[in-house]
């Protein structure tokens, strides 16, 4: 068997798995009748359709593809980890450490994801953005954001 499009091969499998999971999950809800469809009716049908589409994509990846095999390519771990990590960090520490500490740290962590990272730029960015965001969101729009660390 020859994979002609790596992207579509993985896409197809992912769609089958997700569609299947939704369809199986839907069976735990009442299906209802055709006259009075229950909560499981719609998601079950959609899950099946998604899985079928996955099969089509998977089949396509084995029969037709681009010349070079359409590779997925390397995963840029550094931006992926930095960006996602920064969001999770912010979510976790904002209620504990407050805006003034967690926010600039998040910006620096985010900046570290770029390939042109320098400490000077990152800290400068963090200071400017923290001041700006404080003025706009907390002072200006009066949004409820914990500013100081929780005691």
């Amino acid at each position, binding site marked *: 068997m020859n994979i002609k499009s790596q992207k579509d091969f993985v896409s197809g499998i992912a769609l089958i798995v997700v569609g299947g999971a939704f369809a199986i*999950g839907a069976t735990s809800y009442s299906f209802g*009748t055709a006259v009075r469809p229950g909560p499981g009716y*719609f998601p079950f049908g*959609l899950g099946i359709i998604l899985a079928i589409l996955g099969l089509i994509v998977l089949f396509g990846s084995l029969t037709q593809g681009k010349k070079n095999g359409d590779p997925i390519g390397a995963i840029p771990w550094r931006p992926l980890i930095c960006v996602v990590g920064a969001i999770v960090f912010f979510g976790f520490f904002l209620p504990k450490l407050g805006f003034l500490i967690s926010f600039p740290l998040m910006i620096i962590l*985010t900046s570290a994801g770029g390939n042109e990272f320098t400490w000077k730029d990152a800290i400068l*960015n963090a200071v400017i953005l923290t001041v700006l965001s404080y003025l706009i969101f907390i002072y200006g729009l009066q949004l409820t954001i914990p500013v100081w660390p929780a005691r």
Partner: protein
Amino acid sequence: MDLINNLYIGFQTSLSLINLWYAFLGAMLGTLIGVLPGLGPIATIAMLLPSMYSLEPTSALIMLAGIYYGAQYGGSTTAILINVPGEASSVVTALDGYQMARRGRAGKALATAALSSFFAGTIGTLVVAAFAPPLTALAFEFGAPEYCALMFLGLVGAVVLASGSLAKALAMVILGLLLGQINTDVITAVPRFSFGIAELMDGINFVVIAMGVFSFGEIIANLGKPAEHREIFVKKVTGLMPTKDDLKEATPATIRGTILGCLLGVLPGAGPMLASFSSYSLEKKCSKTPDEFGKGAIQGVAAPEAANNAGAQTSFIPMLTLGIPTSAVMALMIGAMTLMGIQPGPQVMTSNPGLFWGLITSMWVGNVMLVILNLPLIGIWVKLLTVPYRFLFPAIMAFCAIGVYTLSNNTFDVYCAAAFAVVGYLFHKLGFEPAPLILGFILGPMMEENLRRALLMARGDWSVFVTRPIAATMIAVAVVLMVVITLPAISKKREEVFVEEE
């Protein structure tokens, strides 16, 4: 006359000081993000929504609309000056606009784009104002089967007109619909797919998905690529005013583009984009000197700009009259309305005439502002064009992070957004177009409700969708669209169009 009376109501709202300010803010912000690299209207709207709770709904929607057409305007500026189309619909503008700029006619190209957009915007606003009431009246005749069929048509249209693989675009819509199923069932009050997590019982907020996929996911994707260094060919823009000859060449093209744009804009999916593509080929066919196209023909700037702006205007028609979004941006507008407690649909016109007509007339006001402000400000935009991405992405992150937290002052939303960031990046990596997902997500619950109501009404008989004439027509159109697009000849042509776009 009704039309004049309605416009009068509208201008009373849109010309109030506060709404003028928000129209201005929206148009400026839109232009800004259109010009800046790596930030689109979807991400921007998602980013701003949480801060808009406190605004009056009319002002908020006026500002969001401003961002939408402002972004298109900014997108054409980058298309002309640096050959980087900021928005999908300004891809065609880059063809001749950039060539004009290279020949020292950048000012004229920008002015032509601005003026033809303005003309098209004016006509577009009038068309929306004229056609909204009859369509709304028609919408009141719609029952659950018609709504369901219409949404089906909308989704099919969005898929067919999206770029890339058809099966994958369809899969995105279905996935969107499925994500919309994570909620508490409206009819039986059974929580679905919530795994006992209280936050999931209310469903995932669409802002979380939009932000995760379009803002965070895009950032990761952009950082994974080698840094883009933009070069401006034109350092200083001079000679803005078009000559008499320019006007003579551009005017008929503008008019044709406007007509085409008004017609195609109503279509679901990529209305404005489709309009700009087809108007370009129309001009090429009409022209006595087709060889000039691609080498800096002024018609090649005027027509697509007029078409995409007219299309952007008329794409509000289905959203305003039926409450049905035809594109991801419109889906966000619908979401914004719901967030602010306005049930989108045909009743908005009667229950909220100030909002309805105010929004329509504000589009014209916004277009006036864009022309008056942006031509003199072009120097600033030229400078902003080259802001390096390394300063931009932390700022985008910052505003998004605050936005997603303040959505409901809940860290759960933040974690969800982080998960969707990964998902969004996967979409990018595997070649999925994310826009249909948002559309499916917003339409999902509405569609399910109407489908179940229709089946209930018809006692479980699916034939209700083919025995009622309006519903049957819409289903038929959708099926024809699907069949046509899979015909080998057309699908090849479709691929060509989208390859050109990339």
